[in-house]
């Protein structure tokens, strides 16, 4: 330290063009200036060329009526282009969130199955992972859409399996129908949940103080069910179940999942689950074997060993790479464009095809995808930090 500062003290500091510290800063400043100049030049070039071709360079088009309709949404042709983009964004987010949740559940199960001591389970899981990981996602999506879901029964003779209707137009499931006073009911349910939490906390304190079995879940659940049940009866069924019913070519009631949406969701979740399974498998193997042996020595059974010793440690290893897969899944949802699902990329392309300016629309779309990815990585980082801190 002092030896390096010596030259300064004695005044023999090298001239700036040979001083490494000055040069470092200078190079970085020059680099930034270069990048800035490049972007400025490209942007100027773009705007100049667009003007020369008589294309609009502002964002006013977002308020213009769209003129087209979008499948499976309330979006009408009188709504604006901006609204159309929002509908696309919403579809992307919905399919991504459901995909992430379901792919995680399936991935964890398959990952554990790959380490099973049962030969058949182990090989089946391995077959699933290898088959899916080695096919391009778009091929798999087209296969699901054209060769599987479109080969479901036609709508006229749709297959009705006790409330679940399958056809090549859509998949329908029982769903909740909400009455007008459902808002009050939902508020009461939220209150009941809080009550359940209080009851659970009380049982925990009691357990700590006296050692009697706490039965937190049982007590909390009972508290919730009693309050919610009474409210439901008093408010005269604010929330009920509707079953889809087929009349001619129309299905009323129930929840409708169009085959396009279904194919994309199924494709994304099955595909990404294969990658998550490999992460889970690797993470479990990365937990030192001694941990498992020690819990065995303590007399824990197979399930307990996983639940209390191995998985909590594996989870911490698995979270950062799994987060990457989440982001991948959200970005891959753009492949819905190939199977007529109106997600963000598709809506953007439709708008461009209808004469709206491409540079602005593509720019907006890229920013939105960037925002989704950054948001996901923030969530994963927070989760990661929380878990590692608790473990430390």
């Amino acid at each position, binding site marked *: 330290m002092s030896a390096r500062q010596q030259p300064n003290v004695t005044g023999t500091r090298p001239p700036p063009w040979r001083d490494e510290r000055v040069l470092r800063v200078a*190079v970085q400043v*020059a680099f930034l200036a270069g990048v800035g100049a490049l972007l400025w030049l490209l942007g100027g070039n773009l705007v100049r060329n667009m003007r020369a071709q008589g*294309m609009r360079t502002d964002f006013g088009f977002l308020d213009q009526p769209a*003129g*087209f*309709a979008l499948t499976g949404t309330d979006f009408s*042709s009188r709504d604006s282009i901006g609204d159309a983009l929002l509908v696309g964004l919403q579809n992307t987010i919905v399919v991504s969130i459901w995909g992430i949740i379901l792919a995680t559940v399936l991935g964890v199960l398959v990952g554990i199955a790959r380490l099973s001591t049962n030969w058949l389970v182990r090989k089946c899981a391995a077959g699933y992972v290898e088959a899916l990981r080695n096919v391009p996602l778009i091929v798999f999506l087209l296969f699901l859409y054209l060769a599987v879901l479109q080969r479901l029964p036609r709508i006229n003779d749709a297959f009705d399996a006790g409330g679940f209707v399958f056809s090549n137009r859509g998949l329908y499931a029982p769903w909740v129908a909400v009455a007008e006073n459902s808002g009050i009911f939902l508020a009461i349910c939220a209150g009941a949940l809080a009550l359940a939490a209080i009851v659970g906390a009380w049982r925990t304190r009691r357990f700590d103080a006296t050692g009697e079995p706490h039965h937190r879940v049982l007590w909390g659940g009972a508290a919730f069910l009693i309050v919610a049940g009474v409210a439901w009866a008093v408010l005269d069924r604010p929330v009920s179940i509707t079953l889809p019913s087929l009349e001619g070519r129309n299905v009323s009631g129930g929840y409708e999942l169009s085959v396009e949406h279904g194919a994309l969701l199924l494709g994304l979740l099955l595909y990404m689950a294969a990658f998550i399974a490999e992460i889970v498998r690797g993470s479990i193997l990365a937990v030192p074997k001694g941990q498992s042996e020690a819990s065995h020595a303590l007399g824990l059974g197979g399930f307990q060993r996983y639940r209390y010793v191995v998985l909590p440690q594996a989870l911490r290893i698995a979270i950062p790479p799994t987060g990457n897969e989440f982001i991948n899944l959200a970005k891959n949802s753009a492949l819905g464009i190939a199977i007529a699902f109106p997600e963000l990329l598709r809506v953007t392309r*439709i708008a461009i095809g209808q004469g709206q300016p*491409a540079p602005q629309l593509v720019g907006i779309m890229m920013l939105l995808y960037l925002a989704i990815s950054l948001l996901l990585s923030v969530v994963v980082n927070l989760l990661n930090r929380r878990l590692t801190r608790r473990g430390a």
Partner: protein
Amino acid sequence: MRHRKFLTSLLVVPALVLAACNGDDGNGGDEPALPEDDGGEEVDAAEGEEDEAPPAEGTLAEVQSRGVLNCGVNDAVPGFGFLTAEGEYEGFDVEFCRAVAAAVLGDADAVEYTALTAEARFTALQAREIDVLIRNTTWTASRDGGESGSFTTTTFYDGQGMMVRSDDDYGSLDDMQDTVVCTLSGTTTELNLESVFVARGLDYEPLTFEDNDTLREAFLAERCDGWTSDKSQLAAFRAEWPEDEGGPDALTILDETMSKEPLGPVTLDGDVEWFDAVRWAVIVTIQAWEFEIDSSNVEEFLDVDPEEDPEVARFLGVDEFDAGLGLDPDFAVNVIQQVGNYQEIYERTVGPETALGLDPGFNTLWTEGGLLYAPPYR
């Protein structure tokens, strides 16, 4: 030290890109790569000096120096623009690409085709990836305006129709309450469908696809009840309907015409010379039909006496009449010899004798009640 070298090299790269951009300026983003266009690029490179010419140089000179026409077409509509199993483009629109190449370059085969989706077509034109777009494109105000396209003239007068399965018993559009209708996105069809159904107060669900192949699969699987598009295109798909699905008779095209769809070649705004060249390459095919000149008898007409038939002599450039279009005086002869007149093109690709069997409708000469009307060639 190594660190510094790395950073300096980082600096060099953008500098090079900057230089490249500056060189490109005059042509207004001419280069944006045409991946499959190898032949054309080489010619460009060989005649680099031409490229440096002032921006005044238009597309016409550029195409002529390149020696090949970049034409944006469809590759999935039989009869109009279709890529055959042998890898050849054929169809009505493709014939007009060839006609433009014959007029501008004297060689109908000097065409580089680019297959475009409905959504990508105008972007490709704006990026100058293609010189002319001939891809069953409907002439509309906003395409003339906002899309900065210039519609040269109409090659095909079409109208939007609705195709349904014959056994569904839809007699007219009004029967199509609560149906699913398939269409291509990024088309005028998509917009007309919405306005017609909304105007008639019909509830329906539009299902829009990126490409005709996926749409066809969906219609085959009865994912949708109706398929709407230009009637000519519907006829093309109906003609090719697989026999095991009932053949063409399994489908019906409803009588109603939902819109006017004048289709024609499009060039980029701001290049009048090129616009005129493309427009007249089309017009001479119509004029030739009116003169009853076709590819088989054009040789005989070349002996015409300018005194006797000045119109034809002027048209064929026999008396060296030059209309000042920047084309050879005898460009019409090239077009007729190598491609044929409008009637020949029509009958070869979509006419009654072909699989499509399209009735000409408005697509016949004005003298016979059609809309084909060539301005005088003088």
